[in-house]
């Protein structure tokens, strides 16, 4: 039997189509109005010409782009190293905090104390402590300032990520552990094969979000000396008395973050869909 919409349904379809066209036109009109207002507001401001010269100077941008890019390469390498190690540290600390039994009491206390203190400590202070405090001890084989600064970032972010992982571990229903244990799996095996895979999947969106934040914060390492993109831009600004290098660095940071942000959004969307699909 072939189906053709009833006259009433055809009316509905026509009505909805009309509404859709109207919405598109409205959106276009409001975008045009807002865009014009913004453009007029900024370019019409009394100081616009000066701002344009000292923030958006094409020659300065081209001149300092290579140095800033070189700095950005350092940021990128730092991001990869710091993100992987901070994730590993966070996972380890989160698992340590779930251990039960008197033997693990000191481990639990240490892990808990760590997440409490390093989430409270400003990253800048940790970087100063690591990069200037540790070499001050004059120990044999003290690593490079770059390594120490990276260590400070890893230790600080590890504390945040540990809490995210812990939330994930606690969100796995106890019946899952019961099912795993009833099959003869040990606590470790249940954790490794049943709890952690589900926990990590659930907290993937917030973990990635923290990684995006980390991407910006790796730049703070320049406080300890190494020349990253921000420091390279700062040098340019000081030499030219022109803020354009900062704009260049800012745009590059956004470009660098875009793929990561896109991945985060994608993962979040998928997670939300899975949740809505029900168990």
């Amino acid at each position: 039997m072939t189906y053709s919409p009833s006259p009433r349904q055809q009316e509905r379809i026509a009505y909805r189509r009309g509404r859709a066209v109207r919405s598109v036109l409205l959106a276009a009109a409001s975008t045009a109005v807002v865009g014009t207002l913004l453009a007029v507001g900024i370019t019409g401001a009394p100081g616009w010409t000066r701002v344009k010269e000292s923030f958006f100077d094409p020659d300065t941008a081209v001149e300092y782009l290579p140095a800033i890019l070189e700095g950005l390469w350092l940021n990128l390498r730092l991001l990869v190293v710091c993100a992987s190690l901070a994730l590993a540290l966070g996972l380890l600390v989160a698992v340590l905090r779930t251990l039960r039994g008197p033997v693990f009491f000191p481990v639990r206390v240490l892990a808990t104390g760590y997440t409490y203190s390093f989430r409270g400590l400003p990253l800048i202070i940790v970087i100063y402590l690591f990069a200037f405090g540790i070499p001050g001890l004059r120990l044999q084989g003290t690593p490079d300032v770059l390594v120490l600064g990276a260590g400070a970032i890893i230790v600080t972010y590890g504390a945040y990520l540990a809490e995210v992982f812990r939330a994930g571990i606690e969100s796995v229903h106890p019946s899952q552990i019961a099912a795993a244990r009833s099959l003869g799996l040990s606590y470790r095996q249940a954790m490794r094969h049943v709890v952690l895979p589900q926990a990590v999947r659930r907290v993937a969106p917030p973990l990635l979000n923290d990684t995006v934040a980390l991407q910006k914060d790796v730049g703070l390492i320049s406080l300890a000396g190494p020349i990253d993109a921000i420091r390279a831009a700062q040098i340019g600004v000081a030499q030219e008395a022109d803020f354009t290098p900062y704009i260049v660095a800012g745009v590059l940071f956004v470009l660098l973050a875009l793929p990561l942000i896109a991945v985060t959004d994608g993962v979040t969307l998928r997670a939300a869909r899975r949740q809505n699909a029900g168990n």
Partner: protein
Amino acid sequence: MLLSCKNVRKVFGDHVILDGLGLDVAEHEVVALIGASGSGKSTLLRCVNLLTEIDDGTIHLDGDEITDPQADPDVVRQRIGLVFQSYNLFPHMTVLDNITLAPVRVHKRPPAEAKAQAMQWLDRVGLAGKAGAYPDRLSGGQQQRVAIVRALVNNPRLLLLDEVTSALDPELVGEVLTMIRELKGEGMTMVLATHEMGFARQVADRVAFLDGGRVLEQGPPAQVLGDPVEARTRQFLARIIEAGRL
């Protein structure tokens, strides 16, 4: 006796769930536990599987005391299968991985062999086509059958079934019950907590009525369900009949 519970006591706070309960189960025997909600059916099963620690008494499996504090619970559980009311499949694993997890990780069987055995079982219960699917793609009845297979591939001496049909839509109960009947035919020793009196009557060799933390009355299904001796049993069955479940 394959399973022997003596004087088992379990207390949650001020609430005495099991109060000196005794229950023996012979090899190849199927025992159905019936009783009101909160009568301790599920608690008893969890105690036998050592998921819950008992507060007094002893439980023996094949003559070994499994409630000995020095016994390794992981080793004990390898001899006992437990199937839950809410299936508790692992949602991040395919059906096949759910089934082969314990054989490979706990019993250290070669993955290929474990997989072949799992496929044989899935084929038997008509779910071979679902081997690569994730649990959320399966109906409740299918999930519960996978959960039973997951327990069986470890070749347990004893299978515990905790209200395995309570979460299922009525039209899906049959497929799970058929599977349990087949297992009985193969001589599997089972203890099942159930609200399905009709099923207890069909599949159980013995029905045990739990009340006040003890086995108040037990015997052949026809006697316990048809002509109970104890007044409490009669009251319980009368309520069940009222609810239209007998």
